[in-house]
């Protein structure tokens, strides 16, 4: 097995069967040091259990640091599963520790369970008993889950909510479809969440705000064209349109648009769909890749840790000189609507700094001031935080996911998205 102890110097290895007892001991030791006056008093409060499935100790360490950044808001028991697919064998080890957020009295518990390939299938029996009773439990699966596997099914059944990130999946159409299938099958036991959905919350807020004034609302029924741009890297590299598809799915499901999967044309990276409004008028939807935008996966790049405003940095400031976004991040949304007269347009586009977006709305009725919003600050501090605050089913997301899967299914027939 890999040298987990070196990766997690603050943790100590304990026998698998003694995890709970050792955690209690650590708490008692801490209380004793408080009583001696050598330590500050903390509260052992928990609001949730977070089980994170990672592909090995390097990712596990990064995830643990990410969870620590959330501890101040979500003191939790974090159970990080480190399952390196290259680590052959049948061993399993546990390491535990505690974490106190800086300038806070929040006290979190860290558990890292390292499993070699042959032991992975036994993980549910180790992990599920460690979930704190009576509190919400979350399963955060980093990367592509093994759809349909016994392991995934068992862990999902043991948690209240499963969180994935479709923007980190290589086969978007297949993954979104599998996620939608999981959502339907597990509806009564477990809710499904997507970090991509949370990451685009500011965009939904901004677009919804266009239609808050009563004079603007009728234009929702007159939408005739939607153009959604998403970030892509080099033109010959794979693109990830999950965020754009999800955004389109949100519009379609909220506004009652009908999606005919056959009505699709264009390249895989830039596609055009023909949809029908509730009044049966035609809506042209374009999902377009904007190439050569710097993208990163925060958990694949240790140096990016803390710099990814979209996930872990609550203040949203970059810590390096290069502006970048999450894979497939939304770059612009443009809606055109007509109610018999002149056309109204509603647009929001990411600024060159990639951290802000500016709105532009033009209505026949009059001028609407444009505004610039800080994308990471709108709504929630971070997409993962947002997901951890959601306890039940997010019906709006689930509708959007269903619509998005429908859109992507048409792409699936014609090759990878």
């Amino acid at each position, binding site marked *: 097995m890999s040298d987990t102890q070196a990766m997690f110097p603050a943790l100590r290895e304990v026998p698998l069967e003694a995890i709970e007892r050792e955690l209690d001991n650590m708490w008692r030791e801490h209380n004793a040091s408080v009583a001696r006056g050598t330590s500050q008093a*903390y*509260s052992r*409060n928990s*609001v949730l259990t977070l089980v994170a499935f990672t592909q090995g100790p390097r990712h596990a360490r990064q995830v643990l640091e990410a969870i620590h950044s959330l*501890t*101040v*808001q979500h*003191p939790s028991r974090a159970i990080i599963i480190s399952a390196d697919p290259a680590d052959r064998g049948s061993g399993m080890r546990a390491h535990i520790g505690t974490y106190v*957020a800086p300038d*806070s*009295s*929040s*006290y979190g518990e860290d558990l890292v369970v390292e499993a070699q390939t042959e032991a992975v299938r036994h993980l549910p029996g180790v992990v599920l008993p460690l979930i704190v009773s009576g509190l919400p439990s979350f399963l955060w699966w980093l990367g592509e889950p093994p759809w349909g596997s016994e392991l995934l099914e068992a862990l999902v059944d043991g948690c209240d909510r499963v969180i994935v990130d479709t923007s980190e999946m290589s086969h978007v159409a297949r993954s979104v479809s599998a996620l939608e299938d999981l959502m339907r099958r597990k509806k009564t036991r477990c809710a499904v969440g997507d970090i991509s959905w949370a990451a685009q919350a500011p965009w*939904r*807020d901004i*677009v*919804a*705000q266009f*239609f*808050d*004034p*009563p004079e603007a*609302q009728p234009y*929702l029924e007159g939408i005739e064209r939607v153009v959604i741009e998403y970030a892509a890297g080099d033109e010959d590299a794979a693109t990830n349109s999950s965020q754009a598809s999800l955004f389109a799915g949100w*519009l379609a499901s*909220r*506004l009652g648009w009908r999606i005919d999967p056959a009505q699709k044309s264009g390249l895989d990276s830039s596609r055009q769909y023909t949809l029908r409004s509730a009044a049966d008028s035609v809506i042209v939807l374009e999902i377009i890749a904007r190439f050569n935008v710097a993208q990163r996966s925060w958990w694949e790049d240790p140096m990016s840790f803390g710099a990814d405003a979209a996930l872990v940095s609550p203040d949203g400031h970059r810590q390096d000189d290069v502006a970048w976004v999450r894979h497939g991040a939304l770059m612009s949304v443009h809606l055109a609507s007509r109610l018999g007269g002149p056309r109204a347009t509603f647009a929001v586009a990411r*600024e060159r*700094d990639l*951290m*802000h977006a*500016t*709105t532009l*709305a033009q209505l026949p009725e*009059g*001028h*609407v*001031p*444009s*505004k*610039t*919003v*800080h994308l990471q*600050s*709108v*709504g929630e*501090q971070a997409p993962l935080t947002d997901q951890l605050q959601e306890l039940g089913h*997010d*019906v*709006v*997301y689930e509708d959007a996911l269903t619509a998005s899967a429908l859109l992507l299914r048409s792409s699936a027939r014609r090759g990878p998205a």
Partner: protein
Amino acid sequence: MDIATTSNPLRAGMRNTRTVEPCIMVIFGATGDLTHRKLIPALYNLELELPLPPQFTVVGVARRPFTNEQFRQQSLDSINTYSRNRPANPAVWETFSKGLFYHQSQFDDLEGYHRLAELLDQLDRERGTRGNRIYYLATPPSFYAAIADNLSTAGLAHRERSGGPDWSRIIIEKPFGHDLQSALALNRELNKAFKEKQIFRIDHYLGKETVQNIMVLRFGNGIFEPIWNRRYVDNVQITVAENIGVENRGDYYEEAGAMRDMVQNHMMQLLSLVSMEPPINFGADSVRDEKVKVLRAIPPLADGEIPLDTVRGQYGPGMIAGEPVQGYCYEKGVAPNSKTETFVALKLTVENWRWAGVPFYLRTGKRLAKRITEVAIEFKRPPYLLFRGTGADQMAPNVLSLRIQPNEGISLLFSAKVPGQEMRLRTVNMDFLYGSSFGVEPPEAYERLLLDCMYGDSTLFTRIDETEQAWQLVDAIERGWAKMPASSIPQYEPGTWGPKEADALIERDGRTWRRL
């Protein structure tokens, strides 16, 4: 007043399902401290985190000859100094600042209001604010009536303009009068221009997360409400203690005293939230109906009860944290022979089915031992002491304390067995700290209250009948005090918990103040 809910289908499922309509917030007293420290930072935080609609506009009104640019610079300084999201984000500030304007006027100059009306009409056309107005009176209360009158005369206080959709609201800060008569007189003046549903009386205590949580604790949990009554509760203690003196507010404090400054508003709010019956829903009037009902159940103290059930005091010179501090009478703006109270302790009763026989002890003061605001529910002891000779008879009663500030949270005192062969009991404290479970910095009270006013939601604002009822209770005590000799205002040592007479007030009932 209807709360701005939305028919926008894109809002479904969003955290902010309520929407802020485009509007102009006109701040009277725009160059003053409240605007500088609280209002502009609060509006910026809302813009950054919500955000506000792009049409949202602020017009600052004050006497100083500022330009728009000077007002914007002052606002930027406010944000950079006082916002919890400081410094200002340049890109967000760039568009937010374009919605900030300044209008110079005397508050009593009608011509200035006509010019203001022209400016607001122009901004409606240019920024799409649709005639919606919020007037924030961040001025001394002596200007409230004149401003409301001039707004009305200049046609700016439209009640519901010819059936149109536009609205206007006015926000005023406490104190709402200095006694019942003046409160009623002020309200009559305001009502000439605005209907009650347009008037938002701000008591920033109600914007505090932990104050709102009193209702959540009581009505969002199943375990507390069944024991929240005379059968289980022995007494309730409400403490609002400050360790600072009157600072630079001597002039104001001379008029107000602790009774008008704290008891009439903040403490009555806490008392009503703790003792009210469950509202039928969380609507503004449902909640406030219950608050008023319980205030009505508190009988004003009769003259004969006042010497027994009230104590006032005034801090003298002394030391705080090793530093000498001057007595109240030596503070700036305070008369050398002032008889204004800086400390009040009260015993009130709530005469209804739920609380009959349960005393509510209130105490507030300046230059006390520490800064703390707490509501403590002290429960009755077990009917029979099973564990005699184990220390059980020395045990503190069960106390559920709701700490409003600092260290916001809830704690429960209960007895537990000391580990060992013998049966020994000890009181232990089960503590819940907001900072531990929800470490995120809560929004400022003003952010919540300004936003609620934009929504048209007056749940967390004080209705006139609440104010009246609180004044009736306070006036009765003030009248009683006026008949008592000045010697009945004892001095207390700074850094203590007030005069010893306050201890006597509660000890007469066989109880003691909680040691905080």
